[in-house]
């Protein structure tokens, strides 16, 4: 079932490995930088929303703040409380971060490119069931949270991880169902094909993005569910500071805490990327100018859309209060899930009638 798009005629297996390693290194570097600067952007934007400056001491506009934070995390004392169950306590943050970073490897950020006669897609692996794998990996990430809370042997951590597990498992369903409408319309699980379906314009000027082709309800369901999946305001109950101190990562410090932190932001970027690919037309956007600009522009449009989505995350964080646990579950099951199912039914009916 799983088929790698290796074009045998052009790539020998050695070239494939070399190209993949290069892409992995680049993707990792870009993603980690993006994570660091998403944190910076969040602090800066929330600061401006709240009449503050945000970071501005380290470097111009505080641009070196992520480096300073990184150094701080590394040099902080790495406390391991004596009462924790050590193997899982150590494994949990690693699991969280690894899964968060893995899922991004299936996200395409642009078209095929040819460099020195080697033709390759702008993603680490182009898989025909890419979306399914991403959903699988992100749903595994609940283990990181659940195990962290359980192995910490602390009541606050336990409550936080219980909330997180319940929340992530519930919203996973609404999130998955909200994507089905798009899948029905494009008839593929391959992210690249889904994006290709969204090229061009309707009525001359409206882009053929899925959000404009009747999937707007699904987009908002996805939006809400993605906020819950990534534990962000207004669904940040697992780490609700004012209730559960820090939720599942109460007992973590230094780099172990930083791993959870990075995983959260990496997950945000993944969620934003999927929204971009499935609803906002991926890397499609106005093209023009010389050849090098035409090569860069798709990646730029993609990054811009992801940025817009992340901006929305941050904006909402600066605005809304937090749900209560039972209200959150009710919202997920009684509101989002039925809407997502209804969307699937309507979409499939329309698609069936069109055929």
């Amino acid at each position, binding site marked *: 079932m799983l088929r790698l798009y290796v074009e045998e005629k052009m790539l020998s297996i050695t070239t494939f490995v070399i190209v993949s390693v290069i892409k992995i290194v680049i993707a990792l570097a870009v993603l980690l930088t993006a994570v660091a600067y998403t944190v910076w952007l969040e602090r800066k934007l929330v600061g401006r929303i709240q009449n503050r400056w945000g970071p501005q001491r380290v470097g111009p506009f505080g641009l070196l703040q992520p480096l300073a934070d990184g150094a701080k995390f590394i040099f902080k004392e790495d406390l391991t409380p004596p009462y924790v169950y050590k193997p899982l306590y150590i494994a949990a943050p690693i699991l969280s971060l690894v899964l968060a970073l893995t899922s991004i490897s299936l996200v395409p950020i642009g078209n095929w490119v040819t460099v020195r006669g080697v033709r390759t897609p702008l993603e680490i692996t182009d898989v025909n069931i890419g979306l399914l794998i991403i959903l699988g990996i992100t749903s595994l990430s609940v283990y990181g949270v659940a195990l962290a809370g359980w192995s910490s042997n602390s*009541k606050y951590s336990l409550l936080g991880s219980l909330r997180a597990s319940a929340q992530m498992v519930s919203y996973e369903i609404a999130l998955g169902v909200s994507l089905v409408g798009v899948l029905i319309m494009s008839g593929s699980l391959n992210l690249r094909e889904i994006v290709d379906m969204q090229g061009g314009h309707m009525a001359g000027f409206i882009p053929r993005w899925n959000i404009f082709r009747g999937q707007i309800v699904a987009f908002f369901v996805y939006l809400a569910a993605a906020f819950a999946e990534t534990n962000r305001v207004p669904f940040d*109950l697992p780490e609700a500071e004012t209730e559960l101190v820090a939720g599942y990562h109460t007992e973590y410090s230094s780099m172990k805490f930083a791993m959870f932190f990075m995983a959260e932001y990496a997950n945000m970027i993944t969620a934003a990327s999927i929204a971009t690919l499935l609803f906002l037309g991926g890397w499609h956007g106005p093209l023009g100018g010389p050849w090098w600009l035409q090569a860069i522009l798709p990646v730029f449009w993609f990054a811009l859309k992801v940025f817009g989505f992340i901006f929305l995350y941050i904006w909402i964080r600066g605005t809304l209060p937090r749900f209560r646990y039972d209200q959150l579950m009710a919202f997920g099951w009684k509101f989002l899930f039925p809407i997502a199912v209804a969307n699937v039914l309507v979409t499939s009916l329309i698609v069936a009638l069109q055929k």
Partner: protein
Amino acid sequence: MPQMFTPSPTLEATGPSTMTLNMGPQHPSTHGVLRLLLEIDGETVVRLMPDIGFLHTGIEKTCEAKFYQQAVPLTDRIDYLCPLTNNLCYVLAVERLLGLEIPPRAQWLRVMLNELTRINSHLVWLGTHALDIGAMSVFLYCFREREDTLRIFEMVSGQRMMTSYFRIGGLALEPPLGMFDTVRKFVNRFPSRVDEYENLLTANPIWLRRTKGVAYLAPEDAIALGATGPTLRASGVDIDLRRDMPYTGYEKFQFKVPISHDGDVFARYIVRVEELRESNEIVRQTLEGVPEGPIKADAPKIVLPDREKMKTQMEALIYHFKIVTEGFPVPAGEVYQAVESPRGEMGYYVVSDGSPKPYRVHVRAPSFANLQALETMCKGRLIADVVAAIGSIDIVLGEVDR
């Protein structure tokens, strides 16, 4: 060997599916150092027991070793969010023992500053309460306006928080030039800022879900538990000492006392937000026609003389020396003076044995009274509601423990 310390209370889980949770004294939303012992079933609170005393300062006892005028700065530290209200209550009590007549100008300024203190205190409450429920920005918006009120306090007294501006017999100093203009600017700007907070919260569906019907306190329970202030008024009991037992000239001003009958967190929120507006209106009224005249009572044996007089009049110098070194005797007797603090009925019970030092000073703290209602509010509700309830009764631990 006698037992030196009372051990901290503990709570044993009573049911097979319950566990105990220790909330505080170090916890982000227990507003200082309140410790709550919770017995929870899942996330539902079965029992709740506050454990207080972590911020015990011994101020009441310390007052007994100070001259009457020296106790004023101590009162600042009891409820550190409304120092001027504490000052006012204490000096009113001592002034009643002394039978002092306070000049009208001092009374007007006392009302003005007392209402600014209420605004200041309610802003801290609104900010932290919203922060507890997850709305982060409101906190910083509130602190922006609080900064303005603190600047006004700094103008009149030289201190931002621990002002000690009210003295027995009047005020410490004549307010500086430009102070009324600063206050007027603030008063004109403030209502639009309250609108801003309300835009973010009052109609916000998440805020409504978190506060409506949460931590209900019936009026009978509120009275039985001794709840006071906005907590009581939000349950529909219409009591406000500023209107019902006017002091320091409150009867001269027109204001509404906002009440609500819902008794939930949202009712307490609405009552306090309305109080912000009403307090602002009172300050606006005080700005119109502040009477001219002295700011200190004509009682040379009690009120410190002006610097100018000390340099020209021998009596003034002698009185100054006597007051500072020996204090002034207060006629024997006892008095209970209550004022409406931002948190409710704040009372100072002062007993004098005729010496220059109080025999006993007891503070009736509204936070302490309101804290007793917490268990009634929270039983059978979720942990998140406990946090909302603590925020809604607006306790200050310095005042609870004294």
